[in-house]
């Protein structure tokens, strides 16, 4: 990276963090620290929930996915607007009316202390572990691109986030996220324009999309139901709805963001605007990936985008085999280019027969290059069983660092840092809220003053920051931790969502029934997961349904116990 890029990167990070700290100065009570004094307007709520959901991987993996398999990933978000509506009708008014700090606080008012403590505990385990990965995943990518040790990138991201989150609490998180999202939009827009500029003179925006389309990369919608295909309209609408509802409704890192709204209306509006904007935003990010794909049809891409893994193979005893595959890859690229030129002319003439013929040829050569890449990754695994053979996250960054002008590279690297910082800051704030409000204040020190709780929140943020950074540093020593954390999330999310659904919609069920239902469900879900009865994503649905059914069943046996009348 050039001096200009380093300058842009450092200036962007300092400016945003300073702005957040300046705007959040003088926070002197627990309400201000954990909920921004509930004074945020709707646009702040909207940008904050978007920044919390969009981790660095979102901006790296999505263009890479579009490059390798097309735009079908956009369907994953189809359930989001529907989930936003349910949240606005049920969750938001209740949380606001009861003036809760955390979602789990409501569960004590509706059920009992046991249920509140159980769900808070499950959340702390899940979020505490996954936040380490939120820091680690972009750190490893940035260390490859910037050629810096992972420890330094991890410490850099982690310590900056901890510093401003401890100082300004929720307000600092919201203000930095507003600027972060603005910079992210600006950077991605500039990157999109640059990709089109870098295409050959006779290939404009429309033609670039057409070429990618003929090679199967513009498949944004798939109506065919298929259990094995994770991205189709049905999995997006049904599975996506449950996933987004459980994430936005029961995960304190999101609940804490929309509770900062100055009123029910402002929180609602923030969430609904997120529902309006999220899908087009993801579509545009994927479209950048499609444009990068077309760019690489005219400029030979590396046989594997993760240069760290490729270099490892270069230095191994498999170098001769890699050399042969590289020659084959080069040959396949040249053949593809001939066909591409014919397709380009056919598109200009609108010669449908020629377009169809060249499409078939191009798709065959695309399969050929994929097969060569597969042989390369097989070699990587032979050389090192722990090799990372998925290079989706490196496609966009590799393009950025190699082809974009000075200055813009620094800005786009800053985006990766900012996205990681945005989601990590929300997570730390939510971990502190839950630890202090649901554990410390409720179970350990009930009658302390506001100042004491504010101090406890700051120390809790520091402690969780240290735990998450430690996790991120330790993650480099365990190969498959990312998947392990995702699996752990699926073990827990469904159960918590089930508890909340019972709380909101099945009023005759009381605390004892739902508490034991949650415990039994956790046990069953753990056994199902351990025995690999189903793919782990389905554990979310199983957990949710089981809690509801078991709670209703237990309530029948416990019917002599009067249902609690705590419903607000």
């Amino acid at each position, binding site marked *: 990276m050039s001096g200009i890029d380093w300058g842009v990167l450092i200036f962007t990070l300092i400016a945003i963090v300073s702005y957040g700290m300046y705007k959040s100065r003088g926070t002197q009570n627990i309400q201000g620290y954990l909920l921004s004094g509930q004074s945020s307007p709707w646009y702040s709520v909207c940008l904050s929930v978007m920044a919390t959901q969009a981790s660095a991987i979102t901006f790296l993996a999505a263009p890479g996915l579009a490059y390798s398999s097309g735009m079908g990933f956009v369907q994953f978000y189809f359930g989001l*607007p529907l989930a936003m509506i349910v949240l606005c009708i049920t969750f938001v008014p209740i949380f606001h009316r009861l003036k809760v700090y955390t979602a789990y606080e409501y569960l004590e008012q509706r059920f009992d202390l046991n249920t509140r403590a159980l769900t808070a505990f499950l959340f702390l385990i899940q979020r505490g572990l996954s936040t380490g990965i939120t820091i680690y995943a972009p750190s490893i990518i940035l260390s490859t691109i910037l050629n810096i040790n992972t420890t330094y990138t991890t410490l850099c991201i982690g310590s900056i986030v901890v510093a401003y989150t401890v100082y300004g609490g929720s307000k600092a998180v919201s203000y930095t996220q507003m600027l972060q999202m603005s910079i992210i939009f600006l950077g991605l827009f500039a990157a999109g324009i640059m990709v089109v500029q870098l295409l050959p003179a006779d290939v404009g925006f429309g033609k670039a999309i057409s070429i990618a389309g*003929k090679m199967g990369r513009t498949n944004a*919608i798939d109506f065919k139901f298929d259990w094995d295909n994770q991205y189709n309209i049905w999995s997006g609408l049904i599975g996506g709805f449950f996933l987004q509802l459980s994430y936005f409704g029961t995960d304190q890192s999101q609940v804490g963001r929309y509770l900062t709204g100055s009123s029910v*209306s402002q929180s609602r509006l923030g969430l*609904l605007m997120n529902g309006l904007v999220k*899908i087009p935003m993801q579509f545009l990010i994927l479209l950048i990936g499609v444009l990068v794909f077309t760019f690489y049809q005219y400029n030979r891409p590396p046989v594997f985008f993760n240069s760290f893994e490729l270099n490892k193979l270069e230095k191994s005893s498999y170098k001769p085999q890699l050399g042969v595959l590289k020659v084959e890859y080069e040959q396949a690229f040249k053949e593809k280019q001939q066909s591409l030129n014919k397709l380009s002319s056919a598109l200009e003439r609108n010669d449908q027969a020629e377009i169809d013929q060249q499409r078939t040829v191009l798709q065959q050569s695309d399969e050929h290059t994929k097969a060569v890449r597969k042989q390369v990754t097989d070699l990587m695994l032979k050389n090192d069983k722990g090799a990372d053979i998925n290079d989706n996250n490196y496609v966009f960054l590799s393009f950025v660092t190699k082809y974009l002008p000075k200055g813009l590279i620094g800005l786009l690297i800053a985006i990766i840092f900012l996205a990681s910082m945005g989601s990590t800051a929300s997570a730390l704030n939510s971990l502190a809220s839950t630890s202090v409000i649901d554990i410390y204040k409720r179970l350990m020190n009930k009658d302390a003053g506001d100042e004491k709780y504010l101090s406890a929140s700051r120390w809790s943020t520091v402690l969780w920051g240290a735990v998450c950074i430690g996790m991120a540093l330790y993650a480099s020593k365990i190969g498959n931790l990312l998947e392990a954390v995702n699996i752990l999330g699926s073990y827990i999310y469904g159960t918590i969502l089930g508890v909340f659904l019972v709380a909101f919609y099945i009023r005759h069920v009381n605390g004892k029934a739902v508490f034991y239902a949650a415990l039994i469900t956790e046990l069953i879900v753990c056994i199902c997961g351990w025995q690999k009865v189903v793919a782990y994503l389905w554990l979310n649905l199983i957990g949710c349904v089981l809690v509801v059914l078991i709670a209703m069943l237990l309530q029948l046996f416990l019917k002599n116990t009067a249902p609690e009348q705590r419903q607000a």
Partner: protein
Amino acid sequence: MSSQQDLPPFVKTWKQFYLLLIGWLVFLIVAFYLFTKYFQ
């Protein structure tokens, strides 16, 4: 909080806003379908 503050912008009730969002989702699905078909 006054009832005036509870009203959403552009439309008269929250229900209308929810319907607007569902309509937007349907529009996006149709637009993406046409996009997929056109460039295929």
